[in-house]
């Protein structure tokens, strides 16, 4: 293999640091960076900031209403086809039935290209962050990484109980094992590379609906 050995690489770092004083104590005051207190109106803040970030937030009372709302949104988007991954979507069976009832074609989640063909992608989230209106989506099992990316319209289901206050809480309340991929989705896809003109939907979804339950 080209490149150099780990030993040679690390030896150079060690010799660069040799004789320098080291502060081995890690800065422990990460809380200095906290913006949102855990005690506030997290749902209200999440809705406010998600709306500012260009998400379309629809608050519903329960999962039954959530199912109806997703069907309604599929209609609003004129969706002919949908990708609903087999894992991670609350009340998945009911969502699938509702979409089918409305004549939306359900694409085979096991087709590697399904996300490139679907008009909408429906996912749940692992957690949401009020501070930045971020949706945390993780990979694994029956989830599909591209169901929230390659579709022109992403519909994410967020349960009010999943909302944490601050990014500090998001980093703190995780299982010990990281998933292979986690993404914080904090807005729809956008670019301003040409003369700072903001254009939505460059690579990922140009539209992001959040159905907030509870």
């Amino acid at each position, binding site marked *: 293999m080209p490149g150099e050995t780990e030993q040679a690489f690390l030896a150079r770092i060690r*010799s660069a640091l040799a004789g320098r004083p080291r502060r081995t104590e890690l*800065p422990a005051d990460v809380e200095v960076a906290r913006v949102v207190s855990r005690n506030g109106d997290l749902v209200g803040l999440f809705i406010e900031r998600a709306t500012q970030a260009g998400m379309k937030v629809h608050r519903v009372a329960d999962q039954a209403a959530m199912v109806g709302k997703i069907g309604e949104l599929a209609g609003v988007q004129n969706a002919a086809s949908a990708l609903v991954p087999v894992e991670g979507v609350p009340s998945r069976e009911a969502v699938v039935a509702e979409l089918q009832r409305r004549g939306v074609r359900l694409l085979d989640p096991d087709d590697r290209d399904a996300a490139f063909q679907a008009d909408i992608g429906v996912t749940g989230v692992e957690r949401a962050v009020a501070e930045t209106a971020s949706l945390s989506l993780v990979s694994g099992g029956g989830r599909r990484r*591209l169901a929230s990316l390659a579709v022109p319209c992403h519909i994410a289901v967020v349960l009010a109980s999943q909302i944490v206050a601050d990014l500090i809480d998001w980093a703190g309340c995780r299982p010990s094992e990281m998933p292979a991929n986690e993404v914080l989705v904090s807005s729809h896809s956008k*670019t301003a590379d040409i003369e700072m003109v903001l254009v939505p939907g*460059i*690579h990922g979804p140009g539209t992001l609906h959040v159905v907030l339950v509870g």
Partner: protein
Amino acid sequence: MSKAGHGAGVPDFKHQAAAAVANRRLQEIFDRATRQKDDGRRAILPELGDPLAVRELAARIKDHTLENLDRYLEQFVGQVRGRGGQVHFAADGDQAKAVIVDIARRASAKLIVKSKSMVSEEIELNHDLEAAGFEVLETDLGEYILQLAGEKPSHIVTPVAHKSREDVGRLFAEKLGIEYTSDPPALTMVARRVLREKFRTADLGIIGANFAVAETGTVCIVTNEGNGRYCSSRPRVLICLMGLEKLLPRMADLPVFLKLLGKSATGQRITCYTSLITGPKRAGDFDGPEEFHVVLMDNRRSAVLGSDYMPTLRCIRCGACLNACPVYRKIGGHAYEATYPGPIGKVITPLLNSLEVYEHLPQASSLCGACLDACPVRIDIPTHLIHLRQELVRRGRSPLTFRLGFKGWRLGMSSRWLYRWGAMQARWFMWLISRNGWCRWMPSTGGVWTQYRDLPVMPARPFRVRWAALQKELESEDGGDAR
């Protein structure tokens, strides 16, 4: 970073800068682009409550990581391997490129999609991949435009800051065979169509790293467009090329930097997509890369590590110092002839390359300090620039007249009488060569200075004399009373 890619020979900073200043369209575009981002940053930073405290915390976390970098690198490498990833080590850019070409060959890759990465610009990775026969596509819209145009980035966050919509329209019409349009949304959608098919069919993805977490072996990239997500999710093989300074100790440290990065770079509360990649896909996962490679690159960073310039390794490449810099705003990114332009580039380009080749960069600053004010990790760029200037003098890289001038200055400033005598001589001399109260020309080294600046003639009555007179006047007004 080799000099070859930035035009052959010695950088011609002064002419490049003068040409940029004379280009009115460029001035308009750059002024708008930099001000918009700078204003956005100022508007949103107060959301952090005490932004200075957060920035100082970020600086302390980075300093701690750098001071203990050997340990954190070992931990990171162990964690990546523990999750099935492979780690490669590269002393310099050539080794890094050889490693990546080798991985691509073993993977029998044909089509490579790349997410925007300044470190790959630094080593001119695409050149080697293309020479080895691979099709490589930049997928960030700005980088894609540059790739089509065969140009270099002019900004580390918005790389086509120098191009007008008409430039992009003409480029797309020529290279992609579309009908000419200068409508940014229409042009963006053209790029979307082309790149979408590339994402779908690519077999190798290359990303950089905004951060890497030692505790978990995670690499973190942020993009607004979503191209980083595609590159790290779809192709069968994923390579992350990163400089060794990107590490953070724990997941708990990451929020501090995510809070600062988007706000400092573009005035966003947070970047649209933050991807955390921890190894290849797991057993039972439907999608994700089967192979995950991390290429850790030194490329002279270890030489900076133990030096007085160590704090420059805190840099998170947000570009805030570029947007805030009065020099960068006027001359744009290309005049620097360096991968990293603007204030931070003026310090790290000589450090990562050669101070002699880039001796113009430490001088290209008024030392106003706007960069330090803007920096989310509090890098004292003006002080580093002064130290580089001192280093240039020590190495004898300044003209004799310059050195004699400062020797004379030091002598003059060492005694009250010499100072007064020197000031009087200077005043006479300036009066002789001036016109309408301004000196626009000076002999010898002074002429280099007045080539780009005018100097007002020193007043006939120096401040010292006027101040004494004013004091006397005030005293007599007060009737000699103390207050």
